[in-house]
């Protein structure tokens, strides 16, 4: 099997990896913000329930959560909810990352000094305006470094989707190993991850630089 043939197959596998990554990110970031607000709610039952849920998700392995999402609905209701393994993996990833992001967002929101909210209040701004026009950008600046960390971890975590037989780049390399007895494609996958993470790192560095004009 030639280098170019392997590359083409790995690129196809990486398509699944990238799709899982992008969809997880797009869905878990806003969901994380919602979970963060729920965990700071003044309605105690909602706050406690959310915090317990986040604790469970952060306290158990992602691999276990993948199994739970895929198998438990079938075991409980005797129906296959997720015939699409990719969808099951996506849901598990979104829930897991939304919980991690929620903790980061909560920290970011709480790190904005109370005086910023009060200044908006005294100036007659609505709560919505205070959040979107005053607080949000400061929160973004606070959370960028930890979010960048989580996002890099997500790229690598996508390989866990293989436990549900989602054919990602590593699975493709493993298939080549089994079928053609070629081990190098397995190591070659590292280059794909490195380049992808390199691009993400550059994007986050640019974003941090863009927000460096003010101090919080």
């Amino acid at each position, binding site marked *: 099997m030639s280098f170019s043939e392997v590359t083409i197959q790995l690129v196809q596998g990486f398509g699944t990896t990238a799709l899982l990554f992008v969809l997880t990110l797009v869905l878990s970031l806003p969901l994380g913000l919602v979970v963060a607000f729920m965990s700071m709610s003044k309605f105690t039952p909602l706050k406690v329930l959310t915090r317990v849920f986040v604790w469970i998700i952060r306290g158990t392995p992602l691999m276990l959560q993948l199994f739970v999402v895929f198998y438990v609905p079938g075991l409980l209701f005797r129906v296959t909810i997720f015939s699409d393994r990719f969808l099951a993996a996506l849901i598990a990833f979104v829930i897991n990352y939304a919980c991690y992001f929620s903790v980061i967002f909560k920290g970011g929101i709480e790190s904005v000094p109370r005086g910023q909210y009060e*200044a908006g*209040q*005294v*100036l*007659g701004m609505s709560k919505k*305006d205070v959040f979107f*026009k005053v607080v949000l950008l400061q929160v973004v*600046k606070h959370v960028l470094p930890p979010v960048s960390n989580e996002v890099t971890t997500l790229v690598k975590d996508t390989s866990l989707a293989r436990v549900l037989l989602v054919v990602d780049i590593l699975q493709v390399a493993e298939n080549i190993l089994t079928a053609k007895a070629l081990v190098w494609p397995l190591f070659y996958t590292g280059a794909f991850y490195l380049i992808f993470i390199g691009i993400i790192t550059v994007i986050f560095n640019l974003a941090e630089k863009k927000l460096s004009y*003010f101090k919080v």
Partner: protein
Amino acid sequence: MAYLEVKGLKKSFGNNRVLRGVDFFLERGRTLTLVGASGNGKTTLLRCLTLLETPDSGTVTLGETTVNFGEDKKSIDSKINAIRGKIGLVFQNFNLFPQYTAFENVLLPLKLYENERRKKGLPPLNTSDESRAKEILCGMGLNDKLDLYPCQLSGGQQQRVAISRAIALEPTVLCFDEPTSALDPALSDEVAKLINSLKNIAVIVVTHDLSFAKKISDITLEVSDGVVKPVQL
């Protein structure tokens, strides 16, 4: 005639009765200073007046509007909304919005205020928001600082931006919380001049600096044991 009148204002935090019945009144164009030892409730009183804290009972009358804190929450909230913006506050540490320039810090509340007026079907203010923001900042001697961010300004300049932001909405009462605490002594006189130059609004200043209070006060009240009493400086 009293423009701002406070009657029987009480505020507790748990078992700690900070304000035990505060009464005073203030006319437009006059400056009231609140002095007293730390922890005696000066800042709490200021926070109650600016409605950052809701008093437990008592009334605050501003012009024609009276907020009776003994009434139900809905009624209090609607009256608070009516007078919010008419009572400005310059915070001790200014609380400028760090992501905005000096100009934008003044412009943002003006724009939002204008949007609110539009929603209510009220006519726009005479001058554009941009020219008004610029005019106020230039009036404070910040002509060449308009495009600088708060972190690029000195303490005194930040304070002038904070004052500009507070007066942009044309409040009828302007409060200052410890205006000289974050400044070096040389700037105190400058702040006193600035406060004395504010015309046609009632000014309330919380300070522990008696010599500063002397420079700006028409009336001085000492906050002690949760009540206020007049003092001569």
